[in-house]
């Protein structure tokens, strides 16, 4: 079992009139990409700022690679890469100069080579000598991502990284994140757009009003869900299938000649049982999709409803 790279325990952040983060505990292991999901104002950015040391915590602790952030903040700076939800760049520097500034600051060996690699990774090679002010928002976003990856940090905190990216950029971002996951990094990525996170997050944490509503592996969260959206297609015996579904208490059943969709209240075991019954009764199932591993379903059932 991989060692947890990032451990957040009972984190609390107070603002003058509100508790922005309230008793949040989260563990991210090497190779995990954890989606931090929640509506605007849920406390995602504050959590990330507190983890990176930019925001003072009232209580709680953050451990990175077994080291306490509060005790060894200077040492852990090389372990942590934080990408904020906006693009802090020096407008009058070129992309390469901007990266050179941070490469020097992090003491990156073989600076020129590493800068080249990061520019290539974020598809900015062509913009190496362009001034930052000439870059589009999406390009700036990628440049800041390149800056975050420069020192090869073990833990990455990405706050809304895809917000300025076009569809192609999002696909490429997904590839980078999968690559990072494969290299054993721990990634905490926040978004309020769930489709952005689907596909590459293997764990999720849902926040609302500063509190963690639920967290865990996406497959596990899907299993725990009380209601799922099921879609089934059959080749024949549709009437029999409809009868079985009705008797199994399928809700909001909408059926056609070739299939049906319905909501199912039972747990994962009950759902397995239903599929088994359909097959035993001779229904020729051609397609079976149990929603649940999908973030939107998890989010909607988590209690955090104000999805923006």
């Amino acid at each position: 079992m991989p060692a947890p790279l990032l451990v957040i325990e009972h984190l609390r952040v107070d603002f003058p009139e509100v508790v922005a983060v309230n008793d949040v505990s989260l563990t991210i292991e090497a190779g995990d990409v954890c989606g931090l999901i929640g509506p605007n104002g849920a406390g995602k950015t504050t959590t990330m700022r507190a983890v990176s040391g930019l925001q003072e915590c009232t209580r709680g602790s953050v451990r990175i690679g077994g080291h306490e952030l509060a005790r060894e903040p200077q040492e852990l700076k090389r372990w942590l890469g934080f990408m904020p939800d906006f693009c802090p760049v020096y407008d009058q520097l070129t992309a390469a100069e901007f990266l050179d500034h941070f490469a020097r600051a992090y003491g990156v060996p073989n600076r020129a080579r590493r800068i080249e690699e990061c520019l290539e990774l974020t598809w900015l090679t062509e913009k190496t000598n362009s001034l930052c002010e000439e870059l589009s928002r999406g390009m700036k976003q990628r440049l800041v991502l390149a800056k975050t990856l420069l020192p090869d940090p073990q833990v990455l905190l990405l706050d809304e990284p895809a917000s300025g990216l076009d569809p192609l950029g999002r696909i490429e971002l997904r590839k980078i994140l999968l690559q990072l996951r494969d290299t054993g990094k721990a990634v905490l990525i926040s978004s309020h757009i769930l489709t952005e996170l689907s596909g590459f997050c293997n764990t999720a944490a849902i926040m609302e009003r500063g509190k963690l509503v639920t967290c865990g592996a996406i497959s596990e969260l899907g299993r725990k869900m009380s209601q799922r959206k099921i879609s089934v297609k059959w080749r024949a015996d549709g009437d029999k299938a409809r009868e079985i579904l009705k008797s199994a208490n399928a809700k909001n059943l909408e059926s056609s000649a070739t299939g049906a969709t319905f909501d199912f209240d039972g747990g994962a075991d009950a759902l397995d049982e239903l599929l088994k019954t359909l097959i035993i009764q001779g229904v020729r199932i051609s397609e079976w999709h149990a929603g649940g591993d999908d973030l939107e379903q998890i989010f909607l059932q988590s209690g955090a409803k104000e999805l923006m």
Partner: protein
Amino acid sequence: MNLNDNPIFLTQKRLVHRGGVLAAILIAALVGLSLLSGLIAYLADPLNFNFPSPQEAGKMFYGWVIGVEILVLVVGGFSRISRTLAEERKAGLWDSNRLTPLKPTQLVTGYWLGSPLRELYMAAVLAGIGLVIVLLAKLSVTLWLGTQILIFSTALFFGLLAVLVGMVFQRPQGGVIFLLALFFFQSFSFTMPKLMLTNFLLPTYGIANLFMESGNSSNDDSIREWSGLPQIFGLPVYPILLSLGLQLIVGVFLWRSAVRKTAKPFQPLMLRWEAVAIFGILLVAQHGLIWGIWHGHFPEIQSWAGRPRFYESEPLISIVHCGTILLATIILAAASPPPESVRVKAMRLGVRNLGAIFPGSAVSLALALAAVAAVILLTQCALSFGSSREIYLIAVGNLLAFFLIFSLLLEFCRLRFKRRALGFVALWLFVLCVLPFILAGVFTNAAFGKLSLLAPGVVALANAHEENLNNLLGIVAGHFGIVVLLFIYWQRQWKQLLANAA
């Protein structure tokens, strides 16, 4: 500390160079060369000018050169540093840099020395032309050396101040407003050059004195006041050394604050012991400068040496009293932790009672500052305490009441009104300090003015021989009534906040 290894410095340098430096250098060169050509024209044909000697002409032209140099390096540099920092904070670059493994000292140094490079180049050109003027006019090289040392040390000193201003002010133009306010207060001290600390911290006396000492042909009183050595508790001190010493001491505190604020931005600007120390050092230096008038026998004048032209000696100590209040106000505002951070700390430590809050609050700091001020004020009347006891008590009581009212107001308003706190503090200070003077003017009755929170100490110290001191003691007692009232409200507000936090 190698600047070539400092990425912040290198980037700032790169940004300055990318913005262009040649035009700025040429402007400085043209200004300097214009002044130099004026001197050359005088030397070629002295009869066309009104200068009594080449030295006087040289001093005039060199004076203009360093005037422009000060404007560029001190004012321009200050504005540049504070604006750069405020803008980078706003853009998020400050946080990005703070997250790198760079040490806070590297960050501070990078902005402090890197962002005003254009101004530094301009000043270097002007300094070079200034040297040529000094040599051509056969003035002493020490005039050039002394003035340049003072200008560059002042630029470094104000640069550090600018770093702090940039870290604290939300808007980029905040630094300029701060600087203008500073010069406004500084202008009051020009009428008593040798006796006011501000003339040494911003080394106007040192620079003017170098001009005077390099051959003065005028007998004008206003010029003679800028000659000779100032005294600290009777000991003559070289003005350059006094300025450099003061800038160094205060600069060390500014440096510590800037580095600490970079490492831990949630802390107040000054630690409590630093606040007390800096307040004490500045107050000792100021009372040392005016000590020669009374020699500890206030209000009996012992020596008229250094007496200012426009002020009698007694109002002078009233001005120092006002300066003490102003300095304490700035220090209390800078060193008092925001109640939110005190509350957070209390919650973290599990503290629920006021007893634990009080030592960390602005109110206890106000008490410490008042104690320091009381001890230092005693130097002026220690040898005549029998006759000056009441005046002393009124002055110290006034300081204590003001400091306590300000600190209680500051914390009460921060707790009660949060982001609108500053406006409410200003409102109450206006009511307590300024409104009585307005009423005194409207009703042509000076008695209203004496009710002001600023009045009792100032009036007692200024009119030591005439004033009915019992009335003033009564007014001070009244001010303590306000202190008690505010303390009750302050206490309630804290209790409520701690209860909510629990």
